[in-house]
């Protein structure tokens, strides 16, 4: 049983950042209850991938990945009774989480001032692109635009190319995981003081928290590091190199001169160890184009798996650039029990990515697949809020809940 069992989260979040935060709490054993509406379902319920290409609010692999282990109720928050249901749920929860645009929770009647009066022990987190105040706090923020806004894109890219993306809407999961930590810290404080609190998380700021090498260079020297592809100032070769096969690649990094000697031996070209163009880090950096050509000439005809095995035996950091299929099939991840394969009522068993940590004393496990929309409405109204059957039926009949 996960260590947070007994903790309840009223989860108003949607898209990725917020759900990613509450996913961590679910992973730790908290009871996470998504409050959803039929009018505006979570964006990710409406996005692919869907099995057989057939859409459906319970069929999205995107939603189903980041909402594992959670429950779902459908409540129309625009009705007074619906609002009352949500407030009562918050009153008996430990955490409330939201990532709407600025002001939405207040307009719904679910702002911090209202909720803390209902529940002084509540920890509430608002995750947003810009934060809850500041001159730009009402600006619209979408995941893909967070990466350039944060400064990450101006530092990322091939040498001489324009600024680039990083492959995922990094500000979302990075904000979400930092948000989970902040909530846990606030719960820790609550255990000792009895007081809840409000957490204002800006994804822009959490992304800057992981860019110190760029920011400190600007602070110290007034300049930013130039975009430099996959290269590194202290390691060479350091890159992702062509391998045999259709769009196959291998990442490798040589950390010192001793590794370089082992590398050229593994390549079957020990004479290169004495080549003055490459013998030291300084020399390899000075001749890096030629160095990378030489590495590519070797890696390009070999499978990335073979090269990885060979280099790892020589004590060198190397690994294939994994595709989603490679991850799915990875024997190591399977042997570690990383994947979650639970029966979902609409789409059967799909292999999902699981929990990236293990605990020896309070093991964490995904207990249930992502919820179909509204699957727990009866459970929440009946068992948590204690409403009798007649009241529940009435709310349902009038469309307040579903």
């Amino acid at each position, binding site marked *: 049983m996960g*260590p*947070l069992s007994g903790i309840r989260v009223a989860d108003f979040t949607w898209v990725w950042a917020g759900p990613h935060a509450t996913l961590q709490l679910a992973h*730790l054993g908290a009871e996470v209850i998504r409050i959803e509406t039929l009018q505006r379902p979570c964006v990710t319920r409406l996005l692919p*991938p*869907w099995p*057989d290409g057939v859409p459906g609010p319970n069929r999205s692999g995107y939603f189903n*990945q980041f909402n594992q282990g959670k429950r779902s109720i459908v409540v129309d928050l625009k009705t007074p009774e619906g609002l009352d249901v949500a407030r009562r749920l918050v009153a008996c929860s430990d955490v409330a989480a939201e990532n709407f645009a600025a002001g939405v929770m207040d307009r719904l009647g679910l702002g911090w001032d209202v909720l803390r009066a209902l529940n002084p022990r509540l920890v509430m*987190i608002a995750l947003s692109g810009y934060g809850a105040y*500041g001159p*730009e706090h009402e600006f619209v923020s979408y995941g893909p*635009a*967070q*990466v*350039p806004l944060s*400064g990450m*894109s*101006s*530092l*990322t890219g*091939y040498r001489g190319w*324009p*600024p*680039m993306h*990083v*492959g*995922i809407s*990094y500000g*979302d999961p*990075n904000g979400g995981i930092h948000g989970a930590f902040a909530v846990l810290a606030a719960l*820790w*404080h609550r255990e000792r003081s009895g007081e809840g*609190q409000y957490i*204002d998380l*800006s994804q822009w*700021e959490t992304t800057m928290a992981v860019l*110190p*090498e760029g*920011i*400190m260079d*600007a602070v110290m*020297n007034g300049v930013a590091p130039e975009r430099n592809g*996959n290269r590194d100032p202290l390691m060479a070769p350091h890159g*992702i190199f062509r391998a045999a096969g259709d*769009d196959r690649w*291998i990442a490798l990094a040589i950390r010192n001169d001793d590794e370089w000697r082992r590398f050229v031996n593994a390549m079957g070209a020990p004479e290169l160890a004495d080549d003055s163009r490459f013998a030291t880090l300084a020399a390899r950096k000075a001749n890096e184009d030629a160095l990378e050509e030489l590495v590519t000439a070797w890696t390009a005809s070999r499978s990335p798996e073979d090269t990885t095995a060979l280099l790892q035996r020589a004590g060198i*950091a190397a690994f294939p*650039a*994994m595709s*989603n299929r490679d*991850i799915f099939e990875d024997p190591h*991840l399977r*042997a*570690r029990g990383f994947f979650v394969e639970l029966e979902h009522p609409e789409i059967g068993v799909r292999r999902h*990515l699981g929990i*990236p*940590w*293990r*605990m020896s*004393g*309070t093991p964490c496990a995904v207990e249930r697949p992502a919820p179909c929309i509204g699957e727990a409405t009866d459970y929440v109204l009946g068992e948590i809020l204690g409403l009798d059957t007649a009241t529940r039926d009435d709310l349902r009949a009038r469309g307040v809940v579903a």
Partner: protein
Amino acid sequence: MTVAPPTPARGALAGLRVVECGDGVAAAYATKLLADLGAAVVKVEPPGGDSTRRRGPFPGGEPHRERSGLFLYLNANKRGVVLDLERDPDRAALTRVLDDCDVLLSDLPAARLEACGLAWPQLHTSHPALVMTAIAPFGLSGPHAAYHATDLTLWAAGGIAYLNGGGPGTDDMPPLKAFGQQAGFQGGVHAAVATMGALFGRARLGGNGQLVEVSIQECLASILELTYAYWPYMGLVASRLGQKPIQPLDFFECRDGWIYLCCIEEHQWQQFVDLMESPDWAGIDLFRDRLSRGANWDALKIFLQEWVREQSVRELYETAQARRVPFAPVSTMGDLLRSEHLGARGFFAELAHPAAGRLRYPGAPYQLGRTPWVLRSPAPLLGEHTAGVLGALGLDARAVAPPAPATESR
């Protein structure tokens, strides 16, 4: 600037005692997150110092072990001791430091942990209440557990590198890493989350601690957005080389910098067209909806570039945002340091350090209303607190290894 609150509030994690035994970014970032919310963190370094002391950035580009920007950032709010864990007296001293401690956080390889006397079974016996969090590139078990890794190879192993590149027509360009040491940072923040979980778990374990194992490869795989599920759901490999289904979502050069155009919803595109004063080309059928704009992006991009080139980043950003269109500037580091918004939020924190001077640092990643994030003290000089920490335990610091002499050129 972040200033100390009027009544010095205690951090959310005040009272928590943490020892960090690692090297590089992952463990150091995990303990930074704990320290910045009030935990008392002791960082254990080898006599030569942590490798981030050698990484920089450095003022003037001159390597100096007390002036590395990365080290200074990661290790503010911590005390630093030097121990040579190859030596018996130093290992014994570490054991004593752990006596007083709630958490041991490490990213050392498993074999090294064992050699340093930090194997879990023994540690659990000698320190039953201790939570030990071990961050490892591929975890502590499984066929790749002993694999060597760097930040780059992990970024590839987690599947994120494969998703990033130049888009259609750039088949010859390799998958591209994100700037910095993001595998380390993700390992660190995930470890901080799991560590807090384990601390809550002590209540369930009669006060006992437990071993928490964090695999960086798994941390990265678990943030693959919607791309991973394309395989188990549809049998499709997600590729960086394909055309994006929806456009515009791309970088454009203005007359004074770069901007990111982002129109996901139809109304956002309509607002953008209106903002451009509805040029003729915007009305042609090839660009009628977001999917056709994706399919005909090569053509649309040329029209857009011509228009955007004349604009200023800031004006276009603010005009678009006024219409609820989520464009963003491609912020440079200088833009961040000068941002009025970040300034109004007090994001950057300022701190003086005896060797590096007064500097601004990236500040609070979240604002906790009652228990603020605070930068209290600068990163430790190498071995600065060895005597103090050991002395408080009644140990003689002269028994343990001294810091190695500095080697860098001055």
